[in-house]
């Protein structure tokens, strides 16, 4: 028991890195994903196809590869060629990757809204952006809650990939202690930390779903 208490400190520090990456990724990927989804369903064929290609690229290659590419290879790419520190590099990779997944969820959500909603809004004089903001997107939120709950829980666990950039997240902190003390207890405690985070997320999404169920 004393041993567990003694490793809580370093594991909590690792969790902070994990949570920081988690929240910043969400804050960036949600608006970016929404923008991508709106372009994807727009009439601008070229832009829509470009987004399509982007989504294919981001979903079609491992997140780990994207992480390594942005950190190690981006500095050598002509024109762009910037060297990012490790944590910002991780944020860019995660935000770009998750925006692609979110974009598909948002697109499916938007396209599931009945045509009659657009027509009902149009005959009342709503512009396209007013229709989206006031009528369509509020209804989309409800429909995408289950897949978004899935993705955010996956994100919590995906954050552990940043060990490849030698960032001290929760899992890497646990592994360090395992190797130092020759005991697997830190892994079990780390699992407890992850479970706690996903529990909070699950509870949060359940509450959101309940709140949006009032108009069913």
């Amino acid at each position, binding site marked *: 028991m004393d041993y567990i208490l003694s490793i809580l400190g370093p594991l909590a520090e690792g969790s902070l890195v994990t949570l920081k990456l988690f929240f910043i990724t969400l804050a960036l990927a949600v608006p970016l994903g929404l923008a991508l989804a709106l372009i994807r369903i727009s009439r601008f064929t070229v832009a829509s196809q470009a987004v399509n290609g982007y989504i294919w690229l981001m979903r079609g290659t491992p997140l780990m590869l994207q992480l390594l590419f942005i950190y190690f290879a981006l500095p050598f790419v002509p024109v762009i060629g910037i060297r990012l520190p490790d944590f910002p590099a991780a944020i860019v990779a995660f935000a770009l990757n998750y925006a692609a997944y979110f974009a598909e969820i948002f697109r499916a959500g938007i396209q599931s809204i*009945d045509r*009659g*909603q657009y*027509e*009902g*809004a*149009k*005959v*009342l*004089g*709503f*512009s396209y952006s*007013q229709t989206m903001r*006031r*009528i369509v997107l*509020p*209804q989309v939120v*409800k429909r995408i809650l289950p897949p978004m709950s899935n993705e955010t829980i996956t994100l919590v666990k995906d954050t552990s990939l940043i060990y490849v950039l030698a960032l001290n997240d929760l899992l890497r902190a646990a592994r360090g202690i395992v190797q130092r003390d020759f005991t697997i207890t830190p892994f079990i405690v780390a699992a407890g930390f992850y479970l706690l985070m996903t529990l909070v997320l699950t509870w949060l999404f359940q509450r959101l779903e309940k709140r949006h169920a*009032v*108009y*069913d």
Partner: protein
Amino acid sequence: MPSMTEPATVNGPMILAEGIRKRFGAHEVLKGVSLTLAKGEVVAVIGPSGSGKSTLLRCLNHLETIDAGRLVIEGDVLADNDASGHARYVADAEVRRICRRMGMVFQHFNLFPHLTVLQNVIEAPVTVKGLKREAILPKAEELLRKVGLYDKRDAYPSRLSGGQKQRVAIARALAMEPDIMLFDEPTSALDPELTGEVLRTMRQLADEHMTMLVVTHEMGFAREVASRVVFMDGGELIESQPAAAFFASPQHPRTRAFLDSML
């Protein structure tokens, strides 16, 4: 330049549609239909399904774009043929401004499910006209009383019957203070015992001299409430007569055949 506030021709027709053509792919749904609506007129459009009557209605307020023809709403041109005979619309903002004078009620209500009854009625005046919620509230409540749903104002549409939903839809359209009301088969999706309450609300509106164009299968409504009945078939306007004359002595054999089949 037409005035922004008053219709350019107060005594002219509310709706003037001339030679309206519309095709979906290879199928020509409207083959040059012309129709005028005077102020305060209640016109029922009847005809078999697929005759183009709903499409005609949807063309009037830009839910469908016409291929050829001329549309004038209260003296303001919405669309007109260019030199090559294709319809050209005025600028988008102008289209929205003109079409806003026409309220519309759909077969499937199209209420906003995430908003309560009262919010459904208030939403457009607040978002589109930029009115303050408090400014529109008395009017919205009055409209809900008028359609008999004041006690349902805080309910969500999913809790309402079809007839109640349609009455909310009428109140929602009226909240934008339209000069013309378009009804696209407003009772077709309702159980027979619920059509009465919707038709009563529409009759009330007609008694207040609202200009109305009603696509309907309700012959009783057409006969008793409409001032004029128009019969469409195969994308053409076959016959247009005052309601009494239309049912007493239909002129065209196709009209007669249709009326016979309805009995």
